[in-house]
């Protein structure tokens, strides 16, 4: 996340229970307590019937808890008139629910108008909002929802929810009705948007991969609305708290976890760098004391060319480029460990050369380092 200050609020659920039937009947949500820090995305995830949507709807009082309390910045929501409360909370649902009889601009202006903002200010805000979600205000303001594609409608839905700059947003499977390719794009766009607005977001999905991608924290719920685990995506993948969580996140949780981490999170190994024409003696001594068995051949601009096996340096004389194994796997600090591992496993020398934006060598990473990460629960420093 960037350093943008949050405009979000702390959302807390305290021993919240919801039962739709009389006492004694099964619970929809059972004694649920969790705190969402200001400016974070909390994803509620679980199989159907786990009470994730019910939990979300208790925050804006579309559902009233049977017992327990929900607070926003310490204020008990049950003491606020529901209508007033809801105007301060953004709400996005899967089917979007745009008003078909209003234009895009009118849809986005709904909450400011309910709050009786002056017309000029509403107009300005609508322009700003459409820009924010990537829709050209001039082209889209006067269209009707029936003239938009699914992705465009979803963006208008997000703009409408953000209109009055609410500290908290509730999103119920917001990208569930969009095809996978567009969903990925909308997710990325939304994460970029969130980096700018830093709202507190409660996000409901049934898709674990979406949860891992979007969440700062994931709350995994199981049938009956029982909180199975509430933690960062990394901790949930590294240390599933129960067999249920372990099964729910899937057998490939190790790989999923690697996609949360980036090369810059690893301590880089100092490479033995050699250039064409240099003597081999010094290089050989350096390789002997290095944890890596290869020297990295670079060009005049410090760009990796290939690997030279330590054993080939024994003969003495000058460095011979023809002895190098060409094509080092080039990684960037932003590359995910999942992609890094895949690149290294595909090349004959199982090392990755980490380079800067001009492809100059910064350091090395090894397959062993990545497998070591998988053994430990904690994230390497940097995230």
């Amino acid at each position, binding site marked *: 996340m960037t350093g943008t200050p949050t405009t979000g609020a702390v959302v807390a659920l305290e021993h919240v229970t919801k039962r739709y039937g009389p006492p004694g009947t099964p619970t929809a949500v059972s004694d649920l307590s969790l705190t969402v820090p200001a400016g974070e995305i909390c994803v509620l995830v679980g199989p159907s019937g786990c009470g994730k949507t019910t939990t979300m709807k208790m925050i*804006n009082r579309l559902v009233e808890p049977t017992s327990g309390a929900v607070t926003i910045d310490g204020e008990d929501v049950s003491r606020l008139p529901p209508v007033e409360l809801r*105007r301060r909370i953004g709400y996005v649902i899967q089917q979007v629910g*745009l*008003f*078909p009889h209003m234009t895009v601009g009118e849809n986005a202006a*709904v909450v400011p108008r309910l709050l009786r903002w002056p017309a000029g200010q509403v107009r300005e805000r609508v322009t700003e909002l459409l820009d924010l979600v990537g829709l050209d205000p001039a082209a889209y303001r006067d269209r009707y929802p*029936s003239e*938009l594609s699914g992705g465009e409608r979803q963006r208008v839905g997000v703009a409408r929810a953000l209109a009055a700059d609410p500290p908290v947003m509730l999103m119920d499977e917001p990208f569930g009705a969009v095809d996978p390719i567009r969903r990925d794009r909308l997710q990325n766009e939304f994460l970029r948007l969130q980096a700018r607005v830093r709202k507190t977001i409660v996000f409901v999905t049934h898709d674990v991969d979406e949860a891992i991608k979007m969440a700062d924290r994931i709350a995994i719920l199981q049938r009956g609305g029982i909180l199975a685990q509430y933690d960062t995506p990394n901790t949930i993948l590294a240390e599933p708290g129960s067999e249920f969580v372990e099964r729910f996140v899937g057998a490939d949780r190790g790989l999923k976890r690697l996609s949360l981490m980036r090369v810059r999170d690893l301590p880089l190994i100092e490479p033995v760098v050699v250039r064409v024409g240099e003597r081999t003696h010094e290089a050989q001594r350096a390789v002997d004391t290095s944890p890596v068995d290869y020297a990295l051949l670079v060009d005049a601009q410090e760009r990796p060319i290939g690997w030279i096996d330590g054993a080939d340096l024994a003969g003495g004389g000058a460095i011979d480029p023809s002895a190098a194994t060409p094509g080092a796997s080039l990684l960037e600090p932003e590359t995910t460990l999942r992609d890094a591992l895949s690149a290294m496993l595909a090349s004959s020398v199982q090392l990755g050369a980490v380079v800067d934006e001009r492809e100059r060598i910064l350091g090395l990473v090894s397959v062993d380092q990545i497998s070591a990460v998988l053994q430990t629960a904690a994230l390497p420093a940097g995230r």
Partner: protein
Amino acid sequence: MPPGEPFIRPAWIVDNLDVIWQRLTEHVGMTLTAVVIGFAISFAAALLIRRRRTLTAVVLGFTGILYAIPSLALFAFLIPFTGISFLSAEIALVSYTLLILIRNILLGLESVPPEVVEAATGMGYTPRQLLWRVELPIALPIIVAGLRIATVTTVGLVTVTALIGQGGLGYLIVVTGVRGFFPTAIWVGAVLSIALAVLADVALLGVQRWLTPWSRARGSAA
């Protein structure tokens, strides 16, 4: 018909334009009164039904029976209570609008997608704002469709109230035309009555299109 009487006497029409005009405005007045009162009652009934679903069968059943009573019989029932009067005529006319209007108002409100209602509620619309700013505008095409049927039906039925001394254009048809053996008046009354029905129908359709520009904006990407 007296022998030698022609179907149309243009001279009579020209000489009686003021009478014809008076009957025409009377017809429009009776129709408007019936539809406006019928709509007010239907609107209230529909909102009541939405609050208490159990009333649906009772209200629709009752208005259905009203709708099924032959108009002549209904007038006969009413005369002992309200006499041969404008009131009797209007009670009957209003009764016939109820079934169509209540049904269409309900259908219109039911046509509002549930996710739209959920989004509106979640964003902080009060129930009243939800009804007037979201549900009714979206229901409008179906409600107006009901109004068109009710209006056209009422324009036709007004002529029958001539039997109890009212009738607008029906007076020309029944009293001047049939009882007076005078075909010109029948023609004038019938043609104007049809014209009025068509005109009202088209006008209401125009109003609906004007009020719901969004219902025609379909499809560039949909």
